[in-house]
Each structure stands twice: as C-alpha cells, then as structure tokens.
C-alpha cells in the first residue's frame, strides 16, 4: 500500500505518496482533482503535471531491464513536503500532488508524478518544473540501474534539464 500524507497548512493542499508497487499517474491525478473540486467547489483553472517513467536505456544508451529506487524513510517525505511548500508559496499555486516510486521498477513503469494546480498557467507550469528539479536534487532518492546481464550501476546525479 502506498504511504500517503495529506498536509493542510492554511488553505493549501499538499499530497505526497511513496509507492513500493506500480502506481498509475492518471488515476492519482483524477483522484487528486476530484478531491480539489470537492474541497474548493471548482476545478482549478490551470493544472500542470509531469510524469517520469523508467527508460529502456541508461545515459550511454546501454539497454536496461529495471531501475531500483532507494530512499531515506522519513527524510525523503519531509524533504518532498518542504520542497512542495516552497514551490507553492514561491508561485502562489493552489495545490500540489507528488507521487514517487520506491523499490524496483520495471521498464515503462511510472517513477514520479508532479502536478500543480493554480489560477493561471504561468504559476502552475513554473511551480511544476521547479518542484521536479528540486525533487531530483534534494529529495533523498538513489537510483540503481539493472542491465540484462545482471550488472548494476548507481546513477550519479541527474540528467541535465
């Protein structure tokens, strides 16, 4: 079962979940939007989202079979929450949804979902892009690439933006 947190500081909603098993971003998005509509009685005027999935090759084009994600239970969630709050306040967005996979993920499976609701497109898109970058650099996750021959490689930081 996914570990889920709802934080309701002031009127802003931040929902974060870590998933040890495959998650379906669009299903999470639908549930999140329904919850937003139920809470605010109107759909957000602007929603920007990003979904990252397991690539079939590593940075050098070598074929991969799976990706393993290690995280720091406790700190990872706290960091995501802090980063989400910063993105929200910085861009005056309305709500954020973050889902992240942990454990071993197969090719094509979702790794991360970041979605931001706001009243206008600029804040929604900028907050979404900023939060994704912040997650990639400041939320304690480590990726181990698995190749067909069983060899593995820890990913050293992120691909350029």
């Amino acid at each position: 079962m996914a570990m889920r947190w709802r934080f309701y500081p002031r009127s802003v909603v931040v929902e974060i979940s870590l998933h040890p098993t495959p998650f379906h971003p669009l299903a999470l998005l639908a549930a999140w939007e329904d919850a937003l509509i139920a809470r605010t009685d109107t759909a957000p005027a602007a929603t920007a989202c990003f979904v990252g999935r397991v690539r079939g090759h590593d940075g050098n084009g070598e074929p991969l079979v799976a990706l393993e994600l290690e995280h720091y239970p406790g700190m990872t969630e706290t960091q995501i929450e802090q980063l989400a709050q910063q993105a929200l306040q910085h861009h005056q967005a309305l709500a954020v949804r973050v889902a992240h996979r942990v454990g071993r993920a197969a090719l094509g499976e979702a790794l991360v979902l970041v979605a931001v609701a706001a009243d206008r497109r600029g804040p929604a898109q900028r907050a979404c892009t900023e939060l994704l970058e912040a997650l990639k650099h400041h939320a304690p996750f480590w990726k181990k690439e698995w190749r067909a021959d069983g060899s593995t490689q820890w990913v050293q930081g992120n691909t350029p933006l």
Partner: protein
Amino acid sequence: MLRVRLFGELRERAGWGEQQVSHAYALTPSQLWQTIAAELGATPDLPARIRVAVNQQFSDANVALCNGDEVAFLPPISGG
C-alpha cells in the same frame, strides 16, 4: 551514541546501512566520516559529493553533534 546511516553505493560498499557509533569519537559529521572512511575505501576527508543529514535534515559537515543524533551520509541524489 550516534545512529549512523548509509545509503546507495555507500551502504553497499560498507555492507551496512545503519550502525551505532560512540559520540566520543565523533563530535562532528566530518569526524564521524573519518571513523568509517576506511571501510568505505574512501578518503578521510568527506568528499564534496557526499551530503550530510543530521536528524533527517540536510546539515553542515562541521556541525556539533549531540548524543542520540541520527547522522546520514548521502551519495549524489538522483530522484524524480
């Protein structure tokens, strides 16, 4: 005692992800790193690419530690 945690490649190299270490030998994260560098096959000086977290918050490597603190050494992060 300090609760020391390693992740990713560091955990694999050390062969452990968590250990208790006496606070006496490690007044700061830097000093604590020196006590485990050998078994990590790493230099005694904390490499810049390794970040430090104290009680699950990013921290400076020279902060004074307190008994009971949780100190983690974090390899380069690759989230998202």
